[in-house]
C-alpha cells in the first residue's frame, strides 16, 4: 500500500514526526555539501543525492564514549557513561546507504553483540528515499542494489510534487500512523514512471558495466599478490578520506583520554589506510602503503564476502570516487584487477 504526501506539506510532515521523535534530514552543510541535521522548523530539506558522510554515524558514531575511570586519591571508580538511545528517525537515506546497514549489522550484531550499536539500531527508524538522479559516480547496481526500490522501515519516492511512502516494517507502520493526516492513499503510477526513467539513466552510467567476477569468496590467493597493487597504490596518500566517507567501513580504535581526574575510554573511527592502524607492540603488521591500500579493498571485495556468505562490503555509493584526493578508488581497483585497463 502506498500513500502520498504533497510536497507543499513536506514541512508539516517533518514537524509531525519531529513532534514525536528526533528527526534527522539531509540539509546543507554550508560548504556545498549535505549533512544530516536534526530537524527544527528552520531546517531546510536539501534535495541532494548523497550526504558527504554516510548515515552510518547514526548507529556507529565517529566517536563514542564507552566508560570512565574516575580517580580519587589512590582509588579508581568505574562509571558506565553510555548515553541511552531514544527513538529517532532518519529521513532520506538512499538505497545504497540503507543496504550498508545490513553490512554493518553482520559485524556488530553477530556474537559478541556490540551493545552500543545494537541499542542505536533498535531505536533508529529509517525512511529511505529512492534515487531519481544518479550521479556518474554511482555503481550500486553492481552490488544488486536497486536504487529505485529502497529498503528501510519506510520506503519513499520523491517526485516533482509529492512524496510517496510505503511502510515496510512495524516501526514504519507506526511512524506512518503519525503522519496519516498529512498523507493520502494513492496509486503508484508516478512512482513506476520515475523508476522507468531512472532505469534508463542507470544503463548510461559510466560505471554500469563494472564486474565482480574475479572477486568474492575464496579469491584471496588469486588476488593477494597481484602486481597491480603496486601501481594502484602508488599515489595513495594514506589519508582516511575514503574510509570516513564510506558507509560500510567499520574499523574503530579504542583510546583512553586522560582528563586529569581519570580516564575516559572512547572509541573512534579508524582507517586501515593510516600508517598507525592496528599497530601492536611489535610494530605494524602492514608496513607499506601498498599493503594498507590492498587491505582496504581486499576487505571490501574478498575478506568480507569470505566471512559473510559472499556479500560484498561495498554498496557503490560513489562517495570515495568523488572525495579521494588523488582520485584512486574502488572502481579503478575493480577494473584493474578485473583485467580492464
Amino acid at each position, binding site marked *: 500500500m502506498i500513500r502520498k504526501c504533497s510536497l507543499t506539506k513536506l514541512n508539516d510532515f517533518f514537524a509531525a514526526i519531529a513532534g514525536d521523535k528526533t528527526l534527522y534530514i539531509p540539509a546543507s*552543510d554550508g560548504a556545498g555539501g549535505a549533512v544530516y541535521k536534526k530537524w527544527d522548523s528552520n531546517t531546510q530539506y536539501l534535495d541532494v543525492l548523497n550526504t558527504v558522510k554516510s548515515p552510518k554515524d547514526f548507529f556507529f558514531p565517529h566517536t563514542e564514549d564507552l566508560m570512565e575511570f574516575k580517580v580519587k586519591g589512590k582509588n579508581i571508580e568505574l562509571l558506565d557513561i553510555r548515553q541511552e538511545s531514544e527513538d529517532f528517525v532518519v529521513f532520506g537515506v538512499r538505497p545504497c546507504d540503507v543496504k550498508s546497514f545490513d553490512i554493518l549489522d553482520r559485524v556488530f550484531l553477530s556474537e559478541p553483540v556490540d551493545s552500543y550499536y545494537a541499542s542505536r539500531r533498535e531505536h533508529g527508524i529509517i525512511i529511505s528515499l529512492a534515487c531519481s538522479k*544518479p*550521479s556518474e559516480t554511482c555503481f550500486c547496481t553492481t552490488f544488486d542494489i536497486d536504487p529505485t526500490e529502497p529498503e528501510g522501515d519506510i520506503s519513499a519516492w520523491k517526485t516533482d510534487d509529492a512524496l510517496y511512502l510505503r511502510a515496510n516494517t512495524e516501526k514504519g507502520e507506526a511512524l506512518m500512523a503519525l503522519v496519516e493526516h498529512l498523507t493520502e492513499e494513492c496509486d503508484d503510477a508516478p512512482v513506476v514512471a520515475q523508476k522507468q526513467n531512472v532505469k534508463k539513466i542507470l544503463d548510461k552510467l559510466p560505471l554500469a558495466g563494472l564486474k565482480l567476477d574475479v572477486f568474492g569468496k575464496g579469491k584471496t590467493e588469486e588476488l593477494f599478490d597481484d602486481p597491480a597493487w603496486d601501481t594502484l597504490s602508488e599515489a595513495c596518500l594514506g589519508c582516511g578520506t575514503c574510509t*570516513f566517507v564510506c558507509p560500510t567501513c567499520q574499523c574503530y580504535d579504542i583510546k583512553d583520554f586522560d582528563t586529569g581526574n581519570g580516564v575516559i575510554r572512547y572509541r573512534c573511527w579508524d582507517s586501515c589506510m593510516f600508517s598507525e592502524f592496528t599497530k601492536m607492540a611489535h610494530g605494524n603488521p602492514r608496513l607499506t602503503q601498498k599493503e594498507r591500500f590492498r587491505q582496504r579493498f581486499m576487505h571490501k571485495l574478498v575478506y568480507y564476502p569470505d566471512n559473510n556468505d559472499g556479500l560484498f562490503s561495498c554498496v557503490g555509493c560513489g562517495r570515495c570516487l568523488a572525495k579521494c584526493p588523488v582520485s*584512486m578508488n574502488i572502481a579503478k581497483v575493480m577494473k584493474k584487477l578485473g583485467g580492464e585497463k
Partner: protein
Amino acid sequence: MQKINRDVLIDRAISLLNSGQVSSVLGWRQGEFFYDVTPAVFTDENDIRENFVWNDFCGANFSKYLVSKTKASDGKILVFLKPCDTYSFNQLLTEHRFDREKVYVIGIPCEGMVDTGKLKAQVGDGLVSAQSTEEGLLVTTLYSDEPVNVDIKSVLAERCINCKSKKHVAYDELLGDEGQIEDSDRFDEVARIEAMSPDERFAFWQGELSRCIRCNACRDVCPACTCEKCVFDNPVSGVENKAPVNSFEEKMFHIIRAFHVAGRCTDCGECSRVCPQNIPLHLLNRKFIKDINGFYGEYQAGECVGSRAPLVDYNLEDLEASDVFEGRDTQ
C-alpha cells in the same frame, strides 16, 4: 584551456625516458571520468601515450611524492611541475627531504585548474564529458540534452583565481613560456575574517572546523607535512588524537598543523583542494603568511632554496607580541 599541449609533454617524457636520462616519469594518469586524474609513475612509452593526461584537472602537486619516490628509485625521475608546485619543490629541498640530483624537473605553464565541485554546482550532477575550448569547457551531463558551455573563470579553483605566481622558481627545463609573479588578492578573504567581530570569527571557524572528520587528507597531501612521524600520530607528543572528538580537538589539530607549516607553507592550496568537507584550510595558512609578511617583511616560502624561514629567524627590532593587535579593533 592549458596553453601547452599534452603532446609536447608526452614527447619530452618519452624522449627523456628512451634516452635513459630518466628512468621514470611522474605525471597525471587518466581515470574513470574526465575530471579524475591520478598522480602516477610512468615507465613505459605506450602507457604514457595512452594514459598520460594534461588538462584543466591536473591539480595535484607532485613535489611531495618526490620524497618517497626518489628513495625508491635508483634512476632519475622526470617530474612535471606547475609554477606553484615549484615553490613546494624548493621548500622540500631547503629541508633536505630529497636528493635534487635524482630529479629532472620540467616546468610547465599553468592556466589554472578547475574545481570539480564548482563545476558540479553549475551544471549539475552526472558529469559525462568535457571539452576544453578557448573560453572554457563544453560539458555534457547525464541530464542535459545539449552540452553546456561553462566559463572557465567561473569554475576555477580558488587558489587559481588568486594565483600568486605563474613563474617557476625551479626547473631543469621549461616548456612553453615563463610567466610572472602575480598580483593576487589572496589575503582579501583573511582580511575579511579579521574584520569580523571576535564572536563572528569564533562562529565562523567553529562552523567550518566542526565539519572536520580528521581524515588527515590535508596533512597527508601537504608538501610541508613530510614528517617521518607526525605529532598527531605520536602518543607521547601531547597532541595526538585520531578523531575530532570535540570542538577543542578540531581546533587543536588545525592550529598546530598551521603552526607547524607556518613560514614553510608555500600556499599551494592542496589542503583546501583535498578536504572532503570543503573546509577553507588555506585561510589558516594564509593568515600566518599574511602575519609574517606584515610583522617581519615579505617572505615567500620556497622562492629560493636554503632561505631562512621566518620562524627560525629573528630581528632585534621585531614586533612585540603585545603589539600584534595594534591598529586592529579591540574586542
